[in-house]
């Protein structure tokens, strides 16, 4: 829930909200366009990126569907997508709700946002592919935000065969 002190911090809160929602919109645009270089660029070098079943997350179990530490691993994943992982191509479409900002200490922002990702395979209908929420730690760097950490905690217990692209 919004906290009592919020009103006082409004201008700051507005700026934070704008930055985070803008960031998520840009993040979605990058992934949905298959622009993975841009995606890597939205993380800090020592970032943490995890796609984890809610089942494990809630049970305190560490196993992820994808667990990448640092831009190097992000780069290895992107190389895999484009060069080593055979798969049928598909479109992703992210619809992300306005973020819920939990904290902003001026440098780091803690926020979450619900997302739905739709998959469309060539010549097919669009289907619900992966829904869940982002748990984020975002860091300001010269007016930009970069991801220090993004956990994609997904509800979807059954992945529709494979998960190739980042969420």
């Amino acid at each position: 829930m919004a906290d009592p002190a919020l009103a006082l911090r409004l201008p700051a809160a507005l700026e934070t909200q704008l930055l985070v929602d803008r960031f998520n919109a840009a993040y979605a645009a990058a992934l949905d366009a298959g622009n993975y270089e841009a995606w890597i660029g939205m993380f800090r070098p020592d970032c943490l990126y995890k796609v984890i079943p809610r089942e494990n997350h809630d049970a305190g179990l560490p196993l992820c569907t994808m667990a990448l530490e640092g831009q190097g691993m992000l780069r290895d994943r992107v190389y895999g997508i484009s060069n080593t992982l055979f798969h049928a191509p598909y479109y992703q479409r992210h619809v992300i709700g306005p973020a819920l900002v939990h904290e902003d200490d001026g440098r780091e922002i803690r926020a979450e946002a619900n997302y739905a990702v739709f998959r469309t395979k060539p010549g097919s209908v669009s289907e619900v592919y992966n829904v869940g929420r982002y748990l984020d730690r975002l860091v300001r760097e010269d007016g930009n935000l970069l991801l220090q950490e993004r956990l994609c905690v997904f509800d979807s217990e059954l992945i529709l065969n494979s998960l190739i692209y980042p969420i």
Partner: protein
Amino acid sequence: MTALMPPGALAPVWEGDGSSRIPFWAYTDPDIYRRELDRFFYGRGHWCYVALEAELPEPGDYKLSFVGERSVIVVRDRDRSLHVVENRCAHRGVRFCQKPRGKARSFVCPYHQWTYKLNGDLAGLPFRHGVKKGDAVEGGMPEDFDLKQHGLTKLKVGTYNGLVFASLDPEAPPLTDYFGPDVMPWIDRIFNGRKLTILGTNRQRIPGNWKLMMENIKDPYHPGLLHTWFVTFGLWRADQTSRMVMDAEGRHAVMISQRNAGGEAKAVTEGVTSFKKDMALNDPRLLDVVPEPWWNGPSVTMITLFPTVIIQQQVNSLSTRHIVPAGPDCFDFIWTHFGFEDDTPDMTQRRLRQANLFGPAGFVSADDGEVIEFSQDGFRQTGGRGETVCELDGRGIAQTPHMVTETLIRGMYAYWRRVMEI
């Protein structure tokens, strides 16, 4: 048994007595599938994987699992023994247990509160002897109603060093006989009695016939060709020392190999488009392999325990993969990754990092799910007419000291034909 001629399909006639050419209808025909459920998953002498003991540490712990298409409850009783009972009320058939994991002292079906012990016995039911109104008694069950006749379906339970299997056949042989002397050592190598630590679960729905996954892990031909990482980093390729082992029936198998340095090697990389000569990891931690004492050599063992489970050791990554069939053209695939109680934090982290290679997003297994889907698409588009050709290394069946062979697949289908009487 039911007729094997579904409407509009061709009669499933398998030419000759070989097993190197598998007709597409074996993957698409709904009656074939039903017979497979009856004879393998529910049938005489077969065991189905349901859980790891480590998932149920405490008395009262239960989890829902599947035997074929049947929902079952795996539960640990007060005396720490394990029961596996069908999740279906004896009264009016309700699949009463809905929470996937939890603790239970008994099972109560919500509809009319019939109550069962953890072993499946019917403990009691409301108004069995009717309801007293004044000195009249209203309703109740018939005199001859016998609680013993109305328990839950009880499955035979087999455990082996932390693995839990169940069978609908009370006469099912001991697990160790079922797996057989050729396969057992490889199970013992991983499951030697030490305690397991559960790392977590991954679930995927693969739109292909369940046997295609068994084939995939009985197919040493593909890893060095489909999977760039395997051929490039030498995790699995034809210039390694390897062995293909199977049980006497040809249903279970183990693919064993030892990694090498990878890199270029004419015989196994020339013209292989998936081989990436100059590929190097930006972050080597993804493949920071540290040999473990218990390996005694092999860096990978892929064990298929027909018909329901794959046990994998691939360098430092360990997992079981549970096959839950859902029709002729679909199955759910449930991965449980684990480690050992005495793992150091570093080793746990290593297993978790290497988990990036496996599961629905894995660098070397996401594409297995993809090719399985596309195989089923291929079978479907001909209406089940056509056949696969599994003749690498001949048409025979034998323990094989290398990986340039499809013998394990032939072995499985020879067994399949015997049991299916096709």
